[in-house]
């Protein structure tokens, strides 16, 4: 029976090809390794954090084929052919994104452990449309947990990016 991913009989590992932050590569991965551990340990991108490892906290959120997902709940072998974005891919040549700048300006992080997950969730959300109200901001934040409870700064950062806030500022 032919299956989509070929098992290497010697290593009991599988070959996958992924594009991570724009770089395409082929890697031999253990069948049971999660995408989060693959990114952190095998690719050397530790910015994706692991909090709960069962999908509750959101620290490991990445963008997979354009959608925010929990990388602790996906196997690396499932990412064969996928386009992956992690927090390391946000800033380009040392220049922060608008969202990162807003986080910086509004003190939207305390210990920083949850920040990369929030940034990836919010980056995906902001691509769908602007966040104009506090209710929308809190809804956008609801899938991630900040154990320092530093949500107010994040709400302010998001609202500072909204079109309405910018229009008010221009008046």
């Amino acid at each position, binding site marked *: 029976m032919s299956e*989509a*991913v070929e*098992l290497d009989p010697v290593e009991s590992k599988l070959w996958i090809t992924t594009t991570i932050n724009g770089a395409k590569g082929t890697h031999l991965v253990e*069948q*049971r390794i999660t995408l989060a*551990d693959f990114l952190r340990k095998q690719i050397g991108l530790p910015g994706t954090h692991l909090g709960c490892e069962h999908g509750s906290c959101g620290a490991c*959120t990445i963008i997979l084929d354009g959608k925010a997902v*929990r990388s602790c709940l*996906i196997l690396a072998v499932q990412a064969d052919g996928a386009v992956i974005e992690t927090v390391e891919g946000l800033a380009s040549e040392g220049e922060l994104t608008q969202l990162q700048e807003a986080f910086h300006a509004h003190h939207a992080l305390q210990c920083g452990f949850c920040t990369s997950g929030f940034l990836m969730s919010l980056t995906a959300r902001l691509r769908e449309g602007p966040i104009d109200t506090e209710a929308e901001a809190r*809804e956008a934040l609801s899938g991630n947990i900040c154990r320092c409870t530093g949500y107010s700064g994040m709400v302010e950062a998001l609202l500072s990016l909204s079109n309405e806030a910018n229009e008010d500022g221009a008046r």
Partner: protein
Amino acid sequence: MKPSRFVYHAPTELEQVLELLSEYGDDAKVLAGGQSLMPMLNFRLLSPGHLIDINRVSELARYSLSDSGLNIGALARQRELELSPEVELAYPILHEGLTNVAHVQIRNRGTICGSLAHADSAAELPSIMVALDAVMNVRSKDSRRTVPAEDFFTFHLTSSLNPEELLVSVDLPRMGANTVGVFDEITRRKGDFALVGAAVLGTWDSDGKIRDCRIVCSGVAPTPLRLREAERYVSGTDLSQEVLIGVQQLVTESLEPTEDIHTSAEYRKKVTGVIIRRGLARLADQRSTIHV
């Protein structure tokens, strides 16, 4: 917090999935969205020898809406259905239920059928399927059968699926033009598991009476629980204020919900009565929006 060893299978055809299930069924789990299975693997609550990933079986990754109803394939994602304006129009109760399933990041991966096969008694979708008289389409290598939603859920985290069977799709019959339905739940924090939830559905007749009421609760029993006494109490009425108060009292007095670390049975009794009253009040409000 890492899964134990398993052999990973990535079939591309439904027939291959059924073949693998017939060979390894007892020692295999089907991986669809993985939003419930992966935590169980990470915690090693489950240690299957074989994992059958259906994510590359494209024929399962679709849903279709027709005059007769909605067919949702095994791999159709929750978020995809939630964002469909046609699905929202045809099944507002399903749309509302989906927006209550965890968070966007989970719904981007999670599947409707995966949630049904997982059969968590606190989940939204099983109760909604019971309220809508949905039918599960189940296949194995050598057989196919259909199971009404009410018979599908047998216990907490247990469905009537046999180890070699796959829930291939679920069929939702079309809601009538005068049929209205809502879903509501109580959670400590938005997106958390529901302490209790309720799917409430009924059909307004030309005399201004509600008929064929369905009241199905999540989180109060090991399976979705139909409150038949409450359904009889409200069916044939105009859902007046007296009826709403009466049914809340009936539910609060008669319900014997489960108690767990999340909350007490006493609390569940009280809030179940409240959300059922609120749900029925919304059905009463919606009477003016339909034409009988």
